[in-house]
């Protein structure tokens, strides 16, 4: 008489499941809702999930931990799952990738499935590498609903960087840009949480209007070019303006630095005790702290 695995006594079933290899366990979790719940209560934990886009391929990297009794035999490894050009799935095994052609699982289903297996709600990082065709970005967008960090690699061209930013930044809690584009005006008006321009090689050219129209909650630029006069003008306009200004934090750094006297020229402020910073107060009660003027400057909107 045939016997199915799920008819084994619960303890034996759990033991058999706990004896399985990580990638087998992940494949097993896809069989049904019941098997998914069994894997959820097994010795396997998905600690984080990241994705990487390379040319016409998307790879999901799952960092998993399998408890085997003690730290010497516990398993920590990354299992990769790829979406190929023909939409077949490449599933990483011990001896390489196994192709699932004409599979019932879509890539976006797999992402949602593995996220729900873990205790994390979103992808940690979505990394876009160079050589990704711009036309492929729509496919990428279809796969992911959200991610914590979008990383646009330094190898991406200016055009690709901008297109990735415009298409994918709204999905991310934080955007990290590795290659500063020359004109960022239309990027900075997007309603985003955190953006970090981390390119140290090419300074990001910021203009007064960029700061005035900024719609990013927390902006950090590691290498920028903007004059002290423009910063001063920005502060003056902020003081005289009574409208809503969304940003909460702007952190700028410049190789040349800024002269604090020039930046604060003509601005009414209070000195903050024991800190090299200035507190500005608008008539409508809004406050702004300007700190560390030198190589860096920080604007904190209180």
């Amino acid at each position, binding site marked *: 008489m*045939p016997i199915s695995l*799920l008819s*084994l006594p619960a303890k034996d079933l759990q033991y058999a499941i706990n004896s399985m290899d990580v990638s*087998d366990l992940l494949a097993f979790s896809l069989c*049904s809702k019941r098997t998914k719940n069994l894997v959820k209560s097994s010795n396997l934990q998905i600690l984080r999930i990241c994705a990487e886009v390379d040319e016409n391929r998307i790879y999901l990297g799952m960092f998993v931990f399998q408890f085997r009794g003690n730290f010497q035999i516990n398993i920590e490894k990354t299992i990769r799952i790829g979406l190929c050009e023909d939409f077949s799935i490449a599933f990483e095994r011990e001896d390489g990738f196994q192709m699932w052609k004409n599979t019932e699982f879509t890539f976006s289903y797999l992402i949602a499935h593995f996220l729900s297996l873990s205790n994390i709600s979103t992808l940690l990082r979505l990394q876009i590498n160079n050589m990704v065709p711009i036309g492929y970005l729509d496919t990428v967008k279809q796969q992911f609903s959200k991610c914590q960090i979008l990383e646009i690699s330094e190898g991406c061209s200016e055009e690709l960087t901008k297109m990735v930013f415009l298409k994918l930044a709204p999905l991310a809690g934080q955007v990290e840009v590795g290659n500063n584009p020359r004109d960022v005006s239309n990027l900075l008006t997007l309603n985003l949480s955190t953006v970090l321009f981390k390119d140290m090689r090419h300074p990001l050219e910021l203009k007064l209007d960029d700061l005035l129209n900024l719609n990013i909650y927390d902006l950090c630029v590691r290498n920028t070019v903007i004059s002290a006069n423009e910063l001063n003008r920005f502060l003056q306009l902020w003081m005289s303006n009574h409208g809503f200004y969304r940003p909460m934090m702007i952190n700028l750094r410049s190789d040349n630095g800024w002269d604090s006297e020039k930046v604060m020229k003509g601005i009414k402020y209070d000195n903050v005790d024991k800190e090299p910073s200035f507190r500005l107060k608008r008539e409508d009660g809004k406050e702004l702290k300007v700190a560390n003027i030198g190589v860096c400057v920080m604007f904190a909107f209180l």
Partner: protein
Amino acid sequence: MSSTEQGTSSAAPAEPTTAPESAAAPEVPESFYYVHGKDKVVHKVSAGALQHSALIHGMISNLGYTEEQAKANPFPFENIDGDILQMVVDWCNQHKGKPTPPEDTNLPKQKEKLFDLVLAVNYLEIKELLTYCCKQVAMMVKGKSPEEIREIWMIPTDAEDEAAEKEAKKRAGKEAAGETAAAAGDAK
């Protein structure tokens, strides 16, 4: 090593033949017990080999059988197929008093046999053998896709699970309705 013979749980078995003990046999004569499965074939097993089974070991400790009594009353395991019990007895004899190796390659590869063995070993509480069996079960799907795993382990799809659940609910409802009707009839 074990020997088998035809018998019943109620009748005393004829003297089974035993394999020669090794040269370094213990000086104290070893006691033997008898077990049989669904097929009533009686297996003679040494107390040392039976140490592996927590269930039988507990039974022996509690019953305090003499060898004659044990011979007259083999432990009946009617829920275990004869060939499966034979495998279990062989394994217990092979691993008598030895440390258990990390792998055991002598376990059956056929799914039905392996699953029956798991059920038997679980019942007899033979921890080490259960570990091997469960590992062997896990190995059945090594490197397989979800579709293949479903087939190998006969895992129902979600749709099949839902249909089975509906059917079970329907059946339970009918049974409950039948019981209510019967109770009402009794009351009249």
